[in-house]
Each structure stands twice: as C-alpha cells, then as structure tokens.
C-alpha cells in the first residue's frame, strides 16, 4: 500500500526548498565579527527583558543605551585619545540609527503579527523542533516568564525572596535606566582602559587620593612604582550638587607631561581633570587638540540639523558658551524620547594660569538629564569653578 507523505514531511520539504532558493539566510550571520559590542548587546537585551523595557517603545532600547555609553566614554577621551574619541562618536551615531530601525520594528503589531505568531506555533508543533522536550510558547509579558523560570517562584514565595534586579534597579538611577546602563558603561570604560594601557592588559599606576587631608607641602609616599601623590587634594574635587565617587591622581608614565594630574569623577554624571604642563607650547597643542575634538561634536550636531527633512523635536541644540584663545566650552542637548527630558552633555577645555590644562565634562546618565538645558550650563560652570579653586589653592601656596 502506498503511504501518503505526512504534513511534517511536506513542510520539511517545502522549508528546505525555500531555504535553498533563499540562500539559507539563517546561516548568513555565521561570519559576523566578534567584538565586545555583541556581548554587551546580549547583556543589555537580557536586562531589558527582565525589566520588560523592550515592550515599551518609549523606553530606551538596548542600542540607544550602547550609543549613550559610547558617547559618554568618548567624551572623557577627547583630550587623551582623539582617534578613540572619534571612533566612539561615529559608533554611537551608527547605533542610534540602528536603534531607530529597532524601535520601528517593535512598534509594529496588529492582526498580521498575530497571524504570524499563530502560524509559528502551528509550524513548531507540527514539526516537533523540540523533540521530546516539553515546549511552551510565552504569551504576553516576558518578564513574568523570566520570573517563572529564573527566580524559582516556589522558593521565592516560601522565603519571601525577590529578584535582586528589582532592588538594584530602583537604586541605580530610577526607572531601571541605571540598571541597564551601569554595567554597559563600566564594561566599555574597562575595555578602553585596557586598550589604552596596552594589550594584553597592563594596569597604569594609579593612586587613589587618601581620605585624610594631606599637608600640601608634604609628599605622600605610595606603594609600588608610583612616586609622590603630587599637590592635589581630595577636597579639590568638591563641587556643589555633585557627589564625586572617584577621586584620583593619575600618572602619565610617558610623554611630555609625565607626572600626576587630578581626575575628579562623579559616577556617570560628570568629571573634571587638571593636568599641569611644563612646556607652554605643548600645553597649547594639547588645548588645541581638545578644542578640535569638542568642535567636532558641534560640527556633527550642525550636520545633523542640516538634514532636509527633520522633525523639530529631533533638532540638536548647540550652545557655545566660550570660544576664546584659551577657553572653549559648549553645551549640546536634544529632547529625549522620554517625556519632559533633555538628553545631552556639556564639555569644556581651557588653559588656566598659563600652565594647567583643564577638561570639564557634564554628562548625566541615561537619556533623561535635567529638563532644562540651562542646568547643563550651570553644572559646567560649577565644575569650572571647582577646577579654578583647586588651581588657585596651588598657585597661592608658598614655595619651598
């Protein structure tokens, strides 16, 4: 008796034929370039789904988080590594464009999408992809399915346990933005440190400023190869409204300005650095390089604004505060995709007292900074005032 082919066989043959015709597109990604960004996108995707961020098209998606992180880290590098800074800025723009495509895809839905899902289930069940394993499709909210699988509900209820990410999320920047951004920012920064300090990883000597106040005239001996602490104090980092979590004296171990420079960093919010130079010509060159990179941000913004078809909400606002021979300061903002929020940054480069190069950066984490662009200006001025106060203290100190 002749056997009729089963539905499964027919479907398999049909899929196989179409795959041949279509050139098996599921294989095309096999040669994709391996890099940190792929791993970070997996991390971001995992966290976004834990918080169901991907379900809300108004939420910052994974690619926007990556773009913002690259911009932030790139801004910090504008003086020390022009090439890396520029490459990060280009990368951030590419991710922003890709993020728009992803947002449009996620905004899609409707009957056709539902029919596709139905069809997918029919095909999956008919063809038994999972073999003998019990397979169930996730209906509705993905975060609830994650809770079910990843957080062992029976034990959680019994012991009144909660997934830690909820607690962490509420502490890291609210609305889970920090929860998504913090590990991405950190990983990119660590990778940049690794790249700039040599591959494989070699740590640059770094000394954290001790908590106790040091007599400015006394040099503090530190462990390892690091020489004196220099003349900077932790109190030099005091800026009203900013909590500096990382105060450090970094040492350039090579190059013309070898020696200590002050780095005051307030988490993911802002920082300023003071670098003393002994050669005025080299100081001028460093300042000009920093200014050129800052101006590149302005040029990029102007180029963006010059697009023929642009929604007014997408315009980037550029406010050049100073463009002098020894000071360049700019605030660049854009309305965020979060209601009543402004996304942006303020950066500055200047020469003070003829021998100090000062770099300023104010860059709130996430895509929801202060609602008023003027707040960026005020914070930048506060950072500048703190840097000038530190230099005044050093300049007023009587010599040995």
């Amino acid at each position, binding site marked *: 008796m002749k056997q009729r082919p089963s539905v499964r066989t027919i479907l398999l043959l049909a899929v196989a034929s179409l795959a041949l015709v279509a050139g098996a597109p599921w294989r095309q990604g096999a040669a994709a370039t391996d*890099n940190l960004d792929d791993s970070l996108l997996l991390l971001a995707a*995992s966290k976004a789904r*834990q918080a169901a961020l991907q379900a809300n098209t108004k939420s910052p998606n994974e690619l926007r988080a990556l773009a913002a992180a690259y911009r932030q880290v790139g801004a910090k590098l504008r003086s020390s590594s022009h090439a890396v800074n520029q490459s990060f800025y280009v990368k951030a723009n590419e991710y922003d464009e890709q993020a728009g495509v992803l947002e449009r895809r996620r905004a899609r839905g409707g009957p056709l999408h539902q029919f596709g899902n139905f069809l997918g289930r029919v095909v*999956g069940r008919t063809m038994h992809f999972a073999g003998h394993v019990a397979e169930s499709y996730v209906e509705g909210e993905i975060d609830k399915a994650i809770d079910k699988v990843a957080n062992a509900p029976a034990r959680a209820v019994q012991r*009144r346990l909660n997934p830690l990410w909820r607690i*962490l999320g509420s502490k890291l920047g609210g609305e889970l933005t920090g929860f998504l951004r913090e*590990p991405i920012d950190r990983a990119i920064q*660590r*990778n940049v440190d690794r790249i700039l300090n040599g591959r494989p990883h070699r740590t640059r000597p770094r000394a954290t400023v001790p908590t106790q106040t040091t007599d400015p005239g006394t040099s503090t001996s530190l462990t390892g190869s690091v020489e004196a602490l220099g003349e900077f104090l932790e109190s030099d980092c005091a800026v009203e409204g900013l909590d500096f979590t990382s105060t450090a004296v970094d040492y350039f171990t090579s190059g013309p300005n070898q020696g200590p420079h002050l780095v005051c960093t307030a988490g993911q919010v802002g920082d300023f650095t003071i670098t003393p130079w002994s050669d005025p010509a080299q100081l001028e060159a460093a300042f000009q390089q920093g200014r050129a990179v800052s101006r590149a941000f302005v040029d990029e913004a102007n180029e963006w604004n010059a697009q023929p078809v642009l929604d007014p909400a997408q315009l980037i606002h550029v406010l050049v505060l100073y463009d002098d021979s020894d000071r360049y300061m700019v605030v660049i903002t854009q309305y965020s995709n979060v209601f009543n929020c402004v996304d942006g940054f303020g950066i500055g480069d200047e020469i003070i007292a003829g021998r100090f190069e000062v770099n300023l950066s104010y860059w709130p984490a996430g895509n929801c900074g202060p609602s008023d662009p003027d707040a960026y200006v005020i914070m930048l001025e506060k950072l500048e005032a703190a840097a000038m106060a530190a230099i005044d203290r050093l300049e007023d100190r009587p010599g040995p």
Partner: protein
Amino acid sequence: MPNPTASSQLTSPAGRKRRWGLAGAACGCAGLLGAACLTLGALGWIGYDVQRSTPRILEGIEVNSEAPPEYGLTAEQQETLTALGPPQSFSILFYQDTMEDGSVYDVRMETWTYFDAQTEITFVDGSRVAQDPVVIEGATVQPVPYRPEQFTGEMTLAQVLAAANLDTYLIVPLEKELLPQGEVYYADQLTFGLKDGELRYVESLPQAEEG
C-alpha cells in the same frame, strides 16, 4: 494497414480540440498544484521564521553533552576567593580583540560581586583591574548556586546546560535589527547569551530578602 478511424480522430478538428483541452487541464492542474506547494512552502517558511523568533520555555531537557573543563582561576582570583569567598553574584563577558599585528585573541571580563562586603571586583583575563563599591541597603542577598569558573568562552548551549546542570530554560531570540543570531536565555538564577551558537555573556541572578 492503418486504422482510418483512429487517424481521423487524431487529425479531425474535434480530436485536436479534445487533445488541447486535455493538455490545458493538465497544465492547469500542475499550475494549481505548484501554486499550492508554493503557498504551503511560503507559509511554512514564515511559520518557521516566526517560530524561531518566538520566546519559549523548554522543560525536561536531558543533556548528553559533557561539561567542558573549567576555567583556571589566576593567582589574583584565588587570593580574592581566599579573602572574600565565592562571589555572591557574578557576570562574565566573552569577546575577542585584535592585536596591533592583526592577530585575534580572546578576552574574558568578569565582575565578582560581594554584597555583604559591599564591593565589586572586575577582572580582565584574570587580572584585577578595578574595585567598586556596591551597596544594597535593607536587603540580604542569597548566594547563587554557580561559580564563575564553570563558564568559559565559546561554550555551546549544550555545554552551558551541562556545566550548570540545567533542565529548564527560557529562550528569547533577539530581533535581527538588534543582534542577528543572538539569543538570550534564562534559567534557574542564571541568564546567558549566545551569538552564533557560542556563549558570549553569562550572569547569575541572585535573590534577596528585603527588610
């Protein structure tokens, strides 16, 4: 001797009409059959594509693969273990970097978190590169049943399942606009991500008791 009746049937106008009619019907049937096959194939293809991109939970998995050898901790990591014990939580990123001479090498960046000691240590290829404060006030974190050294770069799904002894997981394929060939997985107190079938990210998901 030729059969005049048969010959006239083939050459007569009525016979030719019948012959063309039969041929037309056959072509029509073949066309319909082809169209049906194409439609079925297209639907199957769409269904397959959607099915592959639909999040789903798989339970009752029996892993036949053996767990690969564990990652060898460095002296710095051993020191940390001795001083602080196993991390209460950890995350690891696996990626590749290119040297200036063009050669590619693997990088393992891992963060060990100690909530009780309020500190988080980052290692790159086993070298400690940073230590950051971490504060979770008003919560006691339960340790996770995994160790960082259980996971190595380029592990396959089967190897991850074997290493972590998992029999249930949720797979979430990522949109191709986000990361082609990227998949995120969730299992008991664990999440991990594969790209092109290789492990690129793993993180433990601890639970906490509030109050």
